[in-house]
């Protein structure tokens, strides 16, 4: 197989001798193009507008202390009976609140045992914090961790995402510039920009295919 | 392939060459004459080398470049003076302006590039170089315009034909559904892939008929032959004619 590798690479190296077909001033043109786009004066407003455009409900709350009440409201609105979060310190008040809620079963994600996977696939709602938000596209940026695994934002019908306003950046390019990713890429990073959807049948939109049917976003701060 | 849209146009010249194209020569010569006379009306001398034949697009599109090259060489040799070469066709204009340089190498390629730089599609020339001002003397008429693909996309001439038509005060330009879609001609495609071509032109005919137009114009004879031939077969009352001919008819003094 390393023969295959060498053969392929050698063919490509031979082919590389062919000169570039056309001249290229790409980086400069990219800068000029971006400069001509309308300036983003209010990233938060843009972020929320993009959420609106795809029908993602959201609330703005002043601080973390307001999170339990906001989430509680959603639990009632969407008829949630079982919810799972990770053992993240910032979510302790929320977990306490939910544990005390009548009619809501709280699961805390603690480890990757099979039972936990079953729970992930059977709860009504998963709640996660997210690392950042991208205003241009209305995206949540999540890097899964031991406490908040990948499935916590994927396997259940409702996903609640908690985003700090100060973690909003205008564009993905700008987020990349902070160098965090380049330094040591995490095993997985996902941008989530709405509820799972498809239009594979007659181009008719259907929401909630394999991922969550409902995405709820709380913008904090 | 590049959109050969120009940024600068020269001032009005004293004389131009006219390249009639083989389709116009044999099938729509009145339109060719009209196009010439409309240029002459602006006080420009039109030179028509009688030895011109065809731009070479048919063999070129079929993959026969050697044959296309031989004919291209002969055509270019007929237009030595550094004056504009005006062509009443988007596809032939694109052949000369976009593809001729690619047929040659070295010094011949440079010559072809220089030649290509002097090639103007007729409506483009009328609007951007001659800056004509048309007085419409015709009866009210509802007209649909079909923008041919080569004119629109290869030459980047989108505005000139409609600019001319909107100068005709008696002409009501009717929008056509899917106007910028191809008519399905594509030269030999129309016969080599006849079922597909027929399906495309059928949709185009329907769209043109539904526009409520009484006449269909285009700046490409291939498209006119195709759409016109299909409409005629359907016994459509629509009159199908080249843009230059419509303009001449309506702006001629009685």
């Amino acid at each position, binding site marked *: 197989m390393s023969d295959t590798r060498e053969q392929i690479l050698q063919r490509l190296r031979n082919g590389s001798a062919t000169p570039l077909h056309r001249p290229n001033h790409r980086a400069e043109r990219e800068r000029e193009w971006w400069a001509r786009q309308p300036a983003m004066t209010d990233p938060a407003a843009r972020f929320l507008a993009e959420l609106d455009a795809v029908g993602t409900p959201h609330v703005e709350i002043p601080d973390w202390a307001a999170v339990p009440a906001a989430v509680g409201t959603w639990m009632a609105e969407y008829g949630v009976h079982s919810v799972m979060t990770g053992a993240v310190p910032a979510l302790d008040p929320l977990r306490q609140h939910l544990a005390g809620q009548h009619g809501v079963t709280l699961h805390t994600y603690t480890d990757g045992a099979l039972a936990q996977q079953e729970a992930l696939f059977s709860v009504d709602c998963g709640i996660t914090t997210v690392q950042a938000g991208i205003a241009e596209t209305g995206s949540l940026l999540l890097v899964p961790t031991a406490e908040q695994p990948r499935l916590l934002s994927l396997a259940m019908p409702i996903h609640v995402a908690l985003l700090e306003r100060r973690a909003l950046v205008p564009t*993905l390019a700008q987020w990349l510039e902070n160098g965090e990713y380049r330094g040591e890429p995490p095993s997985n990073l996902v941008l989530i920009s709405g509820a799972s959807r498809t239009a594979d049948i007659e181009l008719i939109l259907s929401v909630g295919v394999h991922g969550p049917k409902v995405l709820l976003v709380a913008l904090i701060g | 392939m590049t959109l050969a849209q120009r940024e600068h146009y020269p001032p009005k010249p004293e004389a131009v060459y006219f390249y009639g194209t083989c389709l116009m020569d044999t099938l729509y010569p009145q339109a060719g004459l009209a196009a010439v006379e409309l240029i002459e009306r602006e006080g420009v001398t039109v030179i028509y080398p009688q030895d011109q034949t065809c731009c070479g697009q048919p063999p070129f599109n079929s993959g026969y470049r050697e044959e296309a090259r031989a004919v291209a060489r002969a055509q270019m040799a007929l237009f030595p003076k550094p004056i504009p070469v005006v062509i009443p066709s988007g596809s032939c204009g694109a052949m000369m302006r976009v593809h001729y340089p690619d047929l040659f190498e070295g010094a011949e390629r440079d010559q072809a590039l220089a030649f290509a730089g002097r090639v103007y599609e007729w409506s483009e020339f009328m609007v951007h170089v001659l800056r004509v001002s048309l007085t419409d003397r015709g009866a009210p008429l509802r007209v649909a315009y079909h923008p041919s693909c080569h004119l629109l*996309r290869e030459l980047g001439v989108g505005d000139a034909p409609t600019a001319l038509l909107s100068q005709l005060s008696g002409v009501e330009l009717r929008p056509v559904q899917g106007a910028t879609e191809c008519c399905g001609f594509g030269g030999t495609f129309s016969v080599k892939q006849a079922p597909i071509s027929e399906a495309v032109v059928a949709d185009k005919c329907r769209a043109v008929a539904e526009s409520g137009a009484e006449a269909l114009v285009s700046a490409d004879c291939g498209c006119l032959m195709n759409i016109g031939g299909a409409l005629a077969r359907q016994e459509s009352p629509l009159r199908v004619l080249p843009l230059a001919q419509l303009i001449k008819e309506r702006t001629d003094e009685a």
Partner: protein
Amino acid sequence: MKPDAATFARDAARAVNDTVLRGNLNHALGQIREKRHAAMAALTDSEDLQQIGSAIKQESLARLPELLEQLEENLTRRGIQVHWAENAAEANAAVLAIAQRRGVKLAVKGKTMVSEETELNEHLQAHGIEVVETDLGEYIVQLAEQRPSHIIAPAIHMNRQEIGDLFHDKLGEAHTVDVQAMTAMARRVLREKFQQADMGITGVNFAVAETGTLCLVENEGNGRMSTTVPPVHVAMMGLEKVIANLSDLPTLLRLLTRSATGQVISTYVNWIASPRRPGEQDGPEEVHVIILDNGRSAIYGDGELRDTLNCVRCAACLNICPVYNRIGGHAYGSIYSGPIGKILTPQMAGLGAAGHLAGASTLCGACFEVCPVKIPIPDLLLRLRQEANAPSAAGRAVFGAQAGAMRSGTEAMVWKGWQVLHNSPAAYRAMTRLVALAAAIGPREGRRSLWDHVPLKALRAWRRTRWLPRPAERSLHRLLRGRPNA
């Protein structure tokens, strides 16, 4: 799928007369075109952005061998295993080997055109492995035992009635044409499969050499499921998918999602850099990448044809193509259909088998106009036509023995004769005079003339639905005799 000129002619003719198919395509493709158009129009100078997309791909392709090595190094360093496959058979063998080593009984698949290209499913199934497509469109065509007919919307050729029938027949579900209900059925079935699967197989939209990142975009969540739940993830990619830097991604994503579905971004953008790390609670234990050649390195070697490899598989060219709109994807007889298929398939399958596809175009240029990475498809079609009709294989390195595979002695003679005629002004003028005289013979009333009875095959094909124009009595040459000649 094996392309073939006669089959193409037959299938295309059948397709244009299939009113159900035509209705389905009109309905769906019109909408996708509008969405793409609106999304691009919302950007200032979107045409410039397309040019920039082209430049990004061009730059990365110029460094392709180096970038592939850098990609491999970064992937390997983080525990992703890289396999190189010369052709479809090697790619399938590599996936099978992984599956057999892991005792895989069930594999779930995210949408990947490369696996369709190699016909992976059949290979795995022949070795006793159940393969389930999880993208809704792919799942539908799998149930229907068909191939996808469109790169982005695999079941676009079907309407909800047909899909409802299918779900009823194959899944035993109550018959419905409600789209939400059908989606819910698929969700129920496939959730079980995700949890039971031993392996997830996906494609790769972009592979970033700088960091060893696999970037996958999707809307449904099946890609995330397939790359998270099963213990093994296999990603298949054509070798042209590698791009140099992370900073290339935002622009390419901006172009891809708008061009494909009219979205500012797809619902999920998934970046994978390693298998599950110690302490992480989910994600696959093993991640593999299959880098596939299958003719791409040959395309790469030609400076003009190399632009074929810019393709980001958005299908914008399919959606706008007058030919694709009338015949749908299956008629092409190759997994890559539409304009991109017409340049890619002849280069992969050879001019002998697929050169006819290069002729199935009017060269209208709409594909080039919408391409987010500005592949000059009409120019490449012309080039392929030239190669296919070349007088000999000598000096035509890219296609080797395939050059001139479609050359017809008769057609060559016709064009030679054409050249001789058109290189002789006197002969040309004489011919046009003869034609005009001949046309004048015959009934003057109506539109019919002698022309309409000439039994040439080409003219017969024209005359099925069109009248021929009558040549004028006096040609333009004659009308302009009084003008200056030089």
